[in-house]
C-alpha cells in the first residue's frame, strides 16, 4: 500500500503566527531576491476550503449536512494525499477532533507532521478582536466557548466549511495532547525573539534541508514589516472584510496596553493551566 504520509498541517488557533510562517515558507521554497506576494502564498490551502472538498468528492458540499461533510473530510484529505506526489501543506484552524464514527478529522495515515503555532492568549484576544472586528469582551467569550465554530450557520453558504475551534485551551490540547500526531509546538513569542533558531527547528521537523543562510534570507523576505507594508499597498485577500487590517502590530505583550484587569482575569482563569504549561504566566 502506498505511503500517504505527505500532508504537513500548519495548525493554530487564529492569529497565532500561522500566516507569517506561510509567508516564510513561500520565501524558503521560492528562493530569490524578489518580494514574495502575500496574495500568492505557497500552496497552503486551508483544510476547510469548500472548493477543495467539492473537487475531491464530486458533489456540492452545499447539498450536504455539516455532519455529512465532517464524515467525508478525512476521505478528502486521503484523496488529496493520494493524488499528490509532493508534500502538501494545509493551513488549519479547526481543532483536532474525533468524528462520531471514531475517525479523527485529520487522519494519521496522511499526516507527515504537524506544526502547531501557539501564542499567548492575552495577545491572541487583542489580535482576534481586531480580526473579527468585534468587542474585546465578546472575543474573550468566543475564546472561552467550547462550542465555538467558524462558518456555523445552516441558513447560508460560506466559502469555507464549518470549523470547530473549541476554547483556546481546548484547541491547544486537542492537537498537542490528543491527536497523537508527530507535532512540533512553535511559540509565536519564540518566532519573534529568536527567529533563526525557531524557524530552523520547524524546517528540520518538516524534513526539509536548508542552511541557516537560506533560512535567514527567507526570514528577511517574509519579515512582519514587509508583509504589513505589502498589505497597506495592495491589500491582503485573507483579511476578513470587517477587519481594518490583517497584519496589525505583530508584537508580544500588546495586551498590557489594551486589556482591562477584568478581561485579563477572564482569560487567565479559563486558560491558566495551558498558559502556565507554555510559559505564558511568568511574564505577568
Amino acid at each position, binding site marked *: 500500500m502506498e505511503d500517504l504520509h505527505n500532508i504537513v498541517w500548519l495548525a493554530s488557533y487564529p492569529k497565532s503566527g500561522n500566516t507569517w510562517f506561510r509567508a516564510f515558507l513561500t520565501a524558503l521554497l521560492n528562493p530569490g531576491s524578489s518580494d514574495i506576494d502575500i496574495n500568492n502564498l505557497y500552496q497552503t490551502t486551508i483544510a476547510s476550503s*469548500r472548493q477543495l472538498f467539492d473537487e475531491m468528492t464530486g458533489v456540492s458540499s*452545499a447539498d450536504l449536512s455539516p455532519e455529512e461533510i465532517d464524515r467525508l473530510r478525512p476521505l478528502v484529505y486521503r484523496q488529496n494525499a493520494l493524488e499528490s506526489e509532493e508534500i502538501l501543506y494545509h493551513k488549519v484552524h479547526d481543532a483536532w477532533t474525533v468524528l462520531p464514527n471514531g475517525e479523527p478529522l485529520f487522519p494519521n495515515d496522511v499526516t507527515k507532521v504537524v506544526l502547531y503555532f501557539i501564542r499567548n492568549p492575552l495577545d491572541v484576544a487583542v489580535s482576534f478582536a481586531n480580526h473579527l472586528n468585534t468587542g474585546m469582551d465578546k472575543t474573550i467569550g468566543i475564546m472561552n466557548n467550547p462550542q465555538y465554530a467558524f462558518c456555523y450557520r445552516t441558513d*447560508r453558504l460560506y466559502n469555507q466549511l464549518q470549523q470547530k475551534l473549541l476554547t483556546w485551551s481546548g484547541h491547544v490540547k486537542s492537537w498537542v495532547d490528543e491527536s497523537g500526531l508527530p507535532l512540533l509546538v512553535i511559540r509565536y513569542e519564540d518566532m519573534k525573539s529568536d527567529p533563526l533558531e525557531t524557524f530552523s527547528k520547524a524546517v528540520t521537523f518538516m524534513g526539509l534541508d536548508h542552511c541557516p543562510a537560506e533560512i535567514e534570507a527567507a526570514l528577511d523576505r517574509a519579515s512582519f514589516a514587509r508583509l504589513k507594508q505589502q498589505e497597506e499597498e495592495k491589500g491582503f*485577500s485573507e483579511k476578513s472584510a470587517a477587519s481594518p487590517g490583517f497584519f496589525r502590530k505583530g508584537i508580544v505583550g500588546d495586551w498590557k496596553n489594551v486589556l482591562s484587569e477584568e478581561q485579563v482575569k477572564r482569560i487567565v482563569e479559563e486558560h491558566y493551566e495551558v498558559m502556565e504549561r507554555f510559559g505564558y504566566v511568568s511574564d505577568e
Partner: protein
Amino acid sequence: MSHSKKFHYRAFSLNIASEIPVTGFEAAAAAAAAVDVNIRSGEVPESLPNAINKGVLYQSTDKEFLLRVEGVAAYYVRNGNEIIVRRLGNATEGEVSAFISGTSFGALLHQRRMLPLHACTVLFNDKCLVFAGISGAGKSTLAAALIGQGGTLIADDISVIDFTGTKPAVCPAFPYIKIWEDSLVHLGLSAAGLEPVRGELKKYYLPVEQFSRDYTAIDQVFILASHNKPEIEIKPLQGVDKFRALKKHTYLFRGIPKTGLEQNHFLLANQLAGQVPMSTIIRPNGEFNTDKLIREISQYPGKK
C-alpha cells in the same frame, strides 16, 4: 423505490423519463418526442473496474460515472442516456433527487459531449448573462435578485452551452433556483411553503415563473467572485485566461480528465472563449448588496 408510474420531464433541452421524481425538473407530456434520458431504480455496480478518474465519492470512464453518497443513494450514469439509482438507507425521494439534478446530470451532460458550466444564466435587459463561480460566490442569490428586477431565468447552477446556432447559447435548464434562507431574507422573500433541498439544510427550491424555454445566445460571461474590499471590480478577461476560467468553472471537470471527453471539453471551451466576451466581477464579501451589483452589471460594458 418501486414506481410503476413514470415521470416525464424536460430539462437542459432533454426529454427525460424517470421512475423517480426529480424535484425542480419541469413536467412534460408523456407522449413527447423520443426519450433522451431514462432514470430508473436498479442495482448499480460497486465500482468501475476500468475507472480512469476517481474521487472520494465517484469513479468515471468515458462512458460511465458512478457516484455513491452514503445514506442517500448510489447513482450509475452511463452512455449519456441512462441514470440508474439505488437508494441507500432511509433517504427520502427529495434527498435522492438532489444528486440526480446535480452531480449525476453534470456527468451525463459531459457524456453527451455538451459543455456544462458551474453557472447560472439570466436574461436581463435583453442581454443573456452567464454568471460562473465557485459554490458560495453568490450565483443563485444574484440570479434571484435579477429575476426580482424583471429578469428571466434560463439556468441555475448548471448552464449548458449549445453550439448549434451562429452564436453560443444556453439551453434552458429548469424553472427553479436553489437558494439559502439568508438570501431569501435579503431579497425580501420567505421560505414558507418552499420545499427544502435536504431536510436539515435551510436551502430551498424557489420556483421561478419568469423562465425561458428557448435557447438564448450569450452576450456576456461573468466569472463571479468576492474579495474583502468595499468596491465592486469588473475586469475583462482576454486570451488564454478566458479558457482557464471556463475550465475552472466547468461543472464536475474532475470526472473527465484523460478521457475522450476532455478533448471534447477542450474544443468546446475554446470555441466559447473565442466567441463571447468574458469578464471577472468581484463583489465585496461582507454584506451582499445585490442592488449595487445589478447596477454595475447593467452599466457594463457601457456603450459599444
